[in-house]
């Protein structure tokens, strides 16, 4: 079955089995390994990508079901070799330890900031409640998203 997607702005057309998940399509067919293979039951959020502007867990999404849509992965958030605002804020706040949850966290935070450019701390925690981190205790992640919001709205 043919799968056609626009991923990080580039159109792709590939043959794939009909039951391939979006996660497998991104990682194993396109070689975009930034999106992580975590729990495979939608609980951990490590495989979060954007379909359109909305975050989904790509382990539960069949590639076939998002035929023709625009998909953004963590690789798509950098621009011309420069980190995006959310990525840069994660670096400057030390918001990663092992780093496995980080791509999903960053993509989920990006989705939040596109909808709500100046979220409260509570809104950030709610928006990231589907992304598990077993290292940081979340505080630095919340700090990073607050800083990214300030950078995006020019209030830093």
């Amino acid at each position: 079955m043919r799968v056609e997607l626009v991923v990080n702005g580039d159109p792709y057309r590939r043959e794939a089995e009909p039951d391939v998940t979006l996660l497998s399509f991104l990682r194993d067919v396109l070689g975009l390994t930034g999106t992580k293979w975590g729990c495979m039951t939608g609980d951990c959020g490590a495989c979060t990508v954007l379909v359109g502007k909305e975050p989904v867990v790509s382990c539960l999404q069949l590639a076939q079901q998002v035929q023709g849509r625009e998909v953004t992965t963590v690789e798509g958030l950098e621009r011309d070799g420069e980190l995006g605002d959310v990525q840069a804020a994660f670096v400057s706040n030390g918001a990663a330890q092992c780093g496995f949850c980080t791509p999903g966290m960053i993509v989920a935070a990006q989705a939040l900031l596109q909808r709500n450019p100046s979220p409260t701390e509570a809104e950030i925690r709610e928006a990231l409640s589907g992304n598990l981190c077993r290292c940081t205790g979340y505080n630095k992640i919340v700090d990073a998203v607050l800083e990214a919001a300030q950078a995006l709205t020019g209030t830093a």
Partner: protein
Amino acid sequence: MSGRWSAATRDPALPDLFVPESLDDAIGFLADHAGSATPIAGGTDVMIDTRLGRVSPEWLVDLTRLGSLVDRQIDGEVLRLGALTTIRTVELDPQLARRAAALVEAARVLGSVQIRTMATIGGNLCHATPSAEMPPALLVHDAVVQTAGPGGERSLPLSELFAGPGRTTLEPGELLTAVSLRVPAVAAGSCYLRQTVRWSMDLAGVGVAAAVEVAGTTVTRARIGLGAVAPVPLLVGEAAEAVVGTTLSAEDAARAGACAAAACSPITDARGTAEYRRQVVAVLVPRALRVSWLRATGSWPAGVPAPINGVLSRDAA
């Protein structure tokens, strides 16, 4: 995770996918493959059940291209939501926040943003989980589901859809196509509250929905819906009748709570004991009735959700 699935391109645990071009195609395929084909929409239950071996269909039938299942129409007091309406769409709908607050409150605590973006209202109903968030909220809005199957179309009250944990009364090949609910614009209010151990990414230990309609200072109509305290989501009619004709004093609301607690049949499991759940019902029902009353009488800011445990800041003072 064990080696149950590998990083191979083809996820070995998944069945084949059939992508119908029309509703009739989908119904025909499901009827021809009764027992071996499962419909899939958002996939947030079906994919997990399949991976974990709880179900093992030979076919998944993808409903997501069936445009007729995504419509949304309002006709007077009746709102019709297509089965593919996502939980996130319900959560963010400002008209629903004013006229079906219980539904929005149930939607906003379901899973995570990612899960709500994918999960559909039809899937949440047809999975028939006793603790699902949407059924109690829909029940208090007098929801009726529309179906289409090999024998044609039919409508049934939502309470008649559920047959038991994970089981519905749908026939082989029959699909839920839409749910219609009553959403009065004035002098009416509803509310959904729940008890959980974790506030995110957890199923309800107890879910309680209420809806009231008020004339002057008297309740003229009431509904109380319960989740996670019986094999199926419940409408508890006797408890609701207990507040009709009253001014919903604290005593009236408490009587409804006690009546609802007596009417349910919870089990003891990881999310709580049967005794605890019964007590939570007795506590949450009066709170949900109070918020519904405040909404119906214009004493609650439009579109603002209630705290999920129903405790108002004035209670702490």
